[in-house]
């Protein structure tokens, strides 16, 4: 009896499903060398970048779409997708940003200007294929920090791009990474110089607006020796009947003693209860702990997309380096998520922590897939993994696929996994104390995710909690 109600509570609407009417310039659907030349020309790229794109494109043509994940979807027609869409007006300053776009961001709860200025957050916003506005640039520049769109970085900092792009995720790493390397539209570039602690949270918001468009952003973050940066990304898309492809690549490089904190709140349109529409989220994210004592922390809250295929990973090359992965993934409606991480231990005394919380409701299917690999050189390395699944109702599923490979005798790997259900008894206990049913569900879910939510930067955590409530409670504000 009670569970049906919970089901209703979970069935809340997708709040961010609005579409913005702005004039957009779009490439005709289809993918060929010409498409890539078009994109590169639009972005006024140097020849070397175009050459790299074409190289990736030819490699991609020979590759096959991976089908090993525990997700099912009809074949994707890569020729029916438009690989470029941009607001028509040129964007030079905030004043010139189309007010419709600004309103769209406001609706998303992302005030680009004063509010964020007060909050001390620097924001880069990517609308369909182009970066709309980067705030706080000057202030960051004084510290030598570069925070700009990847397109600008290709033009203005070619040496850094040539050195680091494709260094962590090679262009032929996998099918979707190769596709992204060929057609990536925009994304964010961050460079933190030696010894600089970035004084504010850096944020990017991605928005897919145009119809029949893929989004292929590329993010590159370099933290030089002894530096620190905390970076957040959020995403959303309009509700549509057809599926849209999102294939992003994120590369992180942490040098000696550097620490990168990377948080994601992914709220792409999840499709409807029958699995119609929704974003295909095929993302490659990888960080390299290049130097000694470096650290990379991935924190993700995944509530959107109809299909998610995503494994933010760490290559722990530097001795004593640390990789962390904290994840909350919710699948409801007919969503399918196959997500997890890879921790590759190469350096001595490297450490990794994996905390994964999967929540499934309705017909949602949630899989954790994680690899912990200890190379022969990784003496004294340690891993701790914990994968917990929470089931709401009896039509959903949770699956755990841990892969452990160790070639090093002194390395320690610890893995724990639990699966539990929100029980009638838990709900009833809270209700007997006068707590409303939807608040009770939210309390139990928050409790379940606590270890992960506590890792998010403060204001992002507030947003994540609100999003969890929206997703699970139906309290549309």
């Amino acid at each position: 009896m009670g569970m049906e109600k919970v089901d209703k509570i979970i069935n809340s609407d997708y709040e961010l499903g609005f579409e913005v009417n702005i004039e957009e310039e779009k490439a005709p659907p289809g993918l060929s060398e010409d498409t890539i030349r078009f994109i590169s020309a639009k972005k006024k790229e140097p020849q070397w970048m175009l050459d790299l794109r074409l190289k990736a494109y030819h490699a991609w043509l020979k590759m096959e779409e991976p089908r090993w994940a525990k997700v099912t979807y009809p074949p994707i027609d890569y020729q029916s997708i438009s690989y470029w869409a941009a607001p028509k007006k040129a964007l030079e300053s905030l004043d010139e940003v189309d007010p419709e776009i600004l309103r769209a961001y406001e609706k998303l709860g992302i005030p680009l200007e004063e509010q964020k200025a007060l909050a001390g957050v620097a924001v880069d916003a990517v609308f369909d294929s182009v970066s709309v506005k980067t705030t706080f640039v000057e202030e960051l520049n004084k510290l030598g920090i570069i925070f700009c769109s990847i397109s600008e970085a290709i033009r203005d900092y070619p040496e850094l791009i040539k050195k680091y792009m494709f260094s962590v995720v090679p262009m032929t790493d996998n099918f979707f990474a190769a596709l992204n390397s060929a057609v990536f539209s925009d994304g964010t570039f961050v460079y933190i110089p030696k010894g600089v602690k970035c004084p504010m949270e850096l944020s990017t918001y991605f928005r897919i607006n145009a119809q029949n468009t893929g989004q292929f952003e590329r993010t590159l973050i370099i933290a030089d020796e002894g530096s620190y940066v905390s970076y957040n990304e959020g995403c959303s898309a309009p509700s549509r009947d057809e599926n849209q492809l999102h294939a992003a690549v994120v590369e992180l490089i942490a040098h000696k003693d550097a620490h990168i904190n990377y948080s994601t709140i992914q709220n792409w349109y999840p499709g409807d209860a029958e699995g119609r529409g929704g974003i295909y989220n095929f993302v490659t994210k990888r960080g390299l702990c290049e130097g000694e004592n470096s650290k990379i922390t991935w924190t993700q809250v995944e509530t959107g997309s109809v299909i998610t295929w995503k494994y933010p990973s760490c290559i722990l090359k530097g001795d004593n380096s640390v990789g962390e992965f904290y994840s909350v993934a919710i699948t409801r409606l007919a969503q399918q998520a196959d997500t997890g991480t890879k921790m590759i231990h190469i350096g001595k005394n490297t450490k990794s922590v994996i905390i994964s919380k999967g929540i499934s409701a309705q017909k949602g299917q949630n899989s954790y897939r994680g690899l912990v690999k200890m190379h022969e050189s990784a003496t004294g390395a340690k891993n701790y993994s914990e994968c917990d699944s929470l089931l709401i109702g009896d039509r959903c599923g949770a699956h755990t696929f841990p892969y452990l490979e160790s070639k090093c005798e002194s390395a320690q790997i610890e893995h724990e996994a639990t699966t539990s259900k929100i029980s009638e008894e838990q709900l009833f206990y809270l209700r007997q104390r006068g707590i409303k049913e939807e608040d009770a569900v939210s309390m139990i879910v928050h409790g379940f995710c606590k270890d992960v939510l506590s890792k998010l930067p403060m204001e992002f955590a507030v947003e994540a909690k609100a999003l969890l409530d929206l997703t699970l409670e139906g309290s549309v504000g």
Partner: protein
Amino acid sequence: MSTMMKIENLHAKIGDKQILKGIDLKMLKGKVHAIMGPNGAGKSTLSKAIVGHPDVEVTEGKIIYKGKDITNWEPEERALEGIFMAFQHPVEIPGVNNAYFLRTALNAKRKHLGLPPLNAAEFLRLLKEKIKELGMREEMIHRSLNEGFSGGEKKLNEILQMEILEPDFVILDEIDSGLDIDALKKVSEAINKMRTPDRTFMIITHYRKILDYIEPDFVHVLKNGKVLKTGGIEIVDALEKEGYKIFEEA
């Protein structure tokens, strides 16, 4: 004397099984009512029906509380109106901080009463006072709700909630089960302190022991889904000697 709760011809089932077969029971304001009876008599089902547990389906009859028919009310509505159950087996809720949970519950109640919510500092002051009285360890309020608590600690935590929420009608569902003598004394003392002319207790128990500490005003014996006998403490003496069958002849 005024009636707190009146149960009229209550029939209820759990699944397909008819368990309550016409319960008639009156519980008075400011009194302690003990409910006894053999296993399967319907004691737990009766308490679940009163608090609105979703497992219990009322098929006939009424539950009148403070003059209102609450038979079909949601569990949280009954709770906000002052009905509280100390659970026999309090459930564990991982990651939900005990103090946070208690404050949420208290503020839900305060909102219902038209009172402003207590802020964290005000609430902690109240909470610390109560746990000191109960002799609980302070770290228990910072742990996850009931998680890793011993049997005795779980029961004390139920009593703590009762003290914070100050209900009008309290069901103690086998609060004595699994408690050693010292813990039982402690729990009983706390309950006795809560006895006021406005508060009604319904104590469900198998054993006489707790009734030595908390003296009931009325004892009701349940059997086979009906009230077999109502009286004073003397009933308990007879039960001790002869067992439940002595009431069956009449």
